[in-house]
């Protein structure tokens, strides 16, 4: 009998617990990729002028885990993660492929010249259609691609070392063993 008067406070406790959890653990702006554990979509793109032979779906199934980084010269946050990619390239930790998203050939080439080229191959998605097939909605985004060309994970926003160590390194190891 008394218990029914406690229903409101119990309801509120439930809401508060979820809010508390949401405050620390959820990111409402991050929409997880629908493509995880699916094959990468079909595409074939020309390279940024002067940067490799172009990029197609078949290039991604390399027998090892690789990264596909979506970047653009107009993207401010890309500059934040770029030095880290250069580092990865120098240490030869992982192969990185560059998907140049909604850019112009000259701007992209200039940008790579100025900031360095960490990519093994590049492809220009001038109209952004390949990006949409990949479910890209904000640049930068980084896909982790398995040995058979399956998408293993996607990192939204600038990739940092802690995030790399946490989310990508285990995938690299997993593929080795």
């Amino acid at each position: 009998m008394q218990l029914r008067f406690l229903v409101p406070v119990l309801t509120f406790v439930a809401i508060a617990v979820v809010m508390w959890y949401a405050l620390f653990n959820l990111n409402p702006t991050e929409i997880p990729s629908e493509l995880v554990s699916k094959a990468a979509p079909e595409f074939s793109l020309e390279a940024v002028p002067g940067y490799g032979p172009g990029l197609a779906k078949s290039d991604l199934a390399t027998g090892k885990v690789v990264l596909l980084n979506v970047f653009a010269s107009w993207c401010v946050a890309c500059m934040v993660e770029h030095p880290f990619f250069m580092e990865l390239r120098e240490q030869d930790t992982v192969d990185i492929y560059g998907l140049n998203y909604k850019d112009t050939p000259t701007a992209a080439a200039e940008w790579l010249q100025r900031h360095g080229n960490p990519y093994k191959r590049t492809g220009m998605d001038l109209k952004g259609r390949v990006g949409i097939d990949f479910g890209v909605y904000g640049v930068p985004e980084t896909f982790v691609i398995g040995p058979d060309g399956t998408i293993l994970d996607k990192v939204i926003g600038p990739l940092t070392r802690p995030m790399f160590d946490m989310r990508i390194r285990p995938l690299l190891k997993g593929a080795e063993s």
Partner: protein
Amino acid sequence: MKALCHLTLLLCVTLPFFALPAGAVFLDERLEDPAQEARARDISGDIRCLVCQNQSILDSNADLAQDLRQIVRERITLGDSDAEVRDYLVRRYGDWVLLDPPFKMTTYLLWIGPAVIFLIGALLMILFLRGRSGQNETATTTVLTREEQAELDRLFDSDGPGDRS
């Protein structure tokens, strides 16, 4: 796009009442067939823009929203049904893009919830009224219809003279 995010952020923080970034009128290429164009608009109106909070791609001038509007039109021209167009986008971006949440496992509670809330409330109301209804203290001289009399009898039978707590 980043700039837009920041704008939304700014508005979220400053406004008690949410502000959407100013809408503009767009120079979209429209479909020639008015019926198809109307379908494209209908679908776009229920597709959530990914880079702007709580706006449909129909109302957004974000770059990606423009691309998606164009894709919606393309799919329609290619003969897709409305459901197929939505499916095309859901395959890439997930259920999140649908402003009209689909009825499925993850949303059963959402869609059934209001009915459940109403039924529980109605049940409580009926219990309350039945517990409380009884002979009127100050008898009015209104003539009751037969149905009403029956209803009242039923209530009296179940509750006796009523709870006078």
